[in-house]
């Protein structure tokens, strides 16, 4: 069987190899169907006709590459996505977090930060934010800059407010925002214990021992092989007893060393490292 199904498949593989060689970013373990869609969308945006043309230009044009990273990595998120999950965090993780004098949390693949602030609000309500440090990381510098600013369009506010209510939190989401003309700004008290920094799950390493890792709806973009590698990284980064939260379509079921983890909530994909 030929290694590549067709010319387009070959072109995509060649592009990813060249990007890795030139810029050190490794997209070779990403799921192909969605990556290919986003690359073709990028071609349209840049008015480039063919992938080989992109391949030629991207090694010579740093700003084109920056735009590629910005557009091709996924940065879709929302506040309190899957409200039931946040209920489960309160029930299954918060009691244990309360036993630590200081809490280190890694939010991997935080995109524009909506879920980071969601977690910060939950911690605040539980009296834990003061003694927490949240390391919010992403591969994409431009979304991190936006996350750091904490300024969001108010067009999704209604949806977020509904999510907030369904997550079973106290008060209103708007209590945590300052309202601007057509946007909202996250309360600075929520932001002070969050460290936003660049980190690429594919090539970067462990940077601390965490009590909690959030990595929701990132692994779905990776092949099984890369998923395993990233879960290894999480496993090494977690304290014994620390928890790992994935997206609801993600799982540790296939993971070779899944014996290291206990499942705390199978529906909301909350796992605890036990050995």
């Amino acid at each position: 069987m030929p290694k590549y199904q067709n010319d387009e498949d070959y072109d995509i593989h060649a592009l990813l190899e060249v990007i890795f060689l030139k810029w050190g970013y490794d997209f070779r373990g990403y799921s192909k169907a969605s990556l290919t869609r986003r690359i073709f969308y990028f071609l349209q945006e840049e008015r480039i006709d063919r992938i080989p043309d992109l391949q030629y230009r991207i090694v010579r044009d740093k700003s084109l590459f920056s735009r590629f990273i910005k557009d091709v990595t996924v940065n879709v998120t929302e506040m309190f996505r899957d409200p039931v999950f946040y209920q489960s965090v309160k029930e299954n993780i918060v009691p244990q977090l309360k036993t630590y004098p200081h809490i280190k949390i890694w939010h991997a693949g935080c995109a524009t930060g909506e879920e980071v602030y969601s977690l910060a609000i939950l911690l605040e309500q539980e009296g834990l934010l003061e003694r927490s440090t949240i390391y919010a990381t992403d591969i994409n510098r431009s979304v991190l800059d936006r996350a750091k600013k904490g300024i969001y369009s108010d067009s999704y506010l209604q949806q977020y407010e509904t999510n907030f209510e369904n997550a079973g939190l106290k008060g209103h989401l708007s209590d945590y925002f300052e309202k601007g003309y057509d946007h909202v700004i996250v309360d600075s008290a929520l932001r002070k214990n969050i460290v936003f920094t660049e980190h690429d799950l594919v090539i970067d390493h462990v940077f601390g021992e965490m009590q909690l890792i959030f990595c929701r709806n990132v692994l779905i973009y990776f092949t099984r092989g890369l998923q395993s590698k990233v879960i290894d990284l999480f496993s090494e980064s977690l304290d014994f007893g620390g928890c790992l939260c994935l997206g609801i379509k993600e799982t540790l079921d296939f993971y070779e060393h899944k014996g290291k983890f206990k499942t705390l909530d199978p529906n909301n994909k909350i796992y605890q490292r036990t050995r």
Partner: protein
Amino acid sequence: MNTVPKTPSCIVVIGASWGGIQALRTLLTQLRSPFCFAVVIVIHQDRQRASQLPQLLNDTAAFRVVEAADKEPIVAGNVYISTPNYHLLVEQDGTLSHTIDKPVNYCRPSVDVLFQTAADAFGDRVVAVVLTGANHDGAAGAQRVKQRGGKVFVQNPKEAEAKAMPLATIRDTEVDFIGSLEAIIDKLNGIGQHV
């Protein structure tokens, strides 16, 4: 498991929206099993509601209906259903995958995304079925299916509960068949005999 899961010789991809649950119930009840193809369905659903749909359809269907799992190999004889708020894609290696990429045609999951990736992965071994729905999602995907040599069946807009989705596909694409749900079911049951 006694037998090795069978890679399907072709896949049937189905898009449904408004009125889709009833149509899918009818279709899955009358589709004959076992077959040599797999069925992958995108249906637009209320995102806040937990998905009871696979269970509901499992009760009426003659075969296994499951909510699609990420990176799951597509197996002949199975029916896979989308999850609200996630796109559902077909990978070239014959697995399914999910994304939270931006909505397409205001929809996530989007029928276009399923159809286009299925066409890219399975080429002329794709049958796309467009059922009732109140928007134009699926029309662009059906075009791609035709470009890659697959077939497109469309529910007759006159009998669909919402006609916009079938109409949009018929307008944009030279489809292979337009007919009642029953006629489409007959066509699909016929595929099993030809392969």
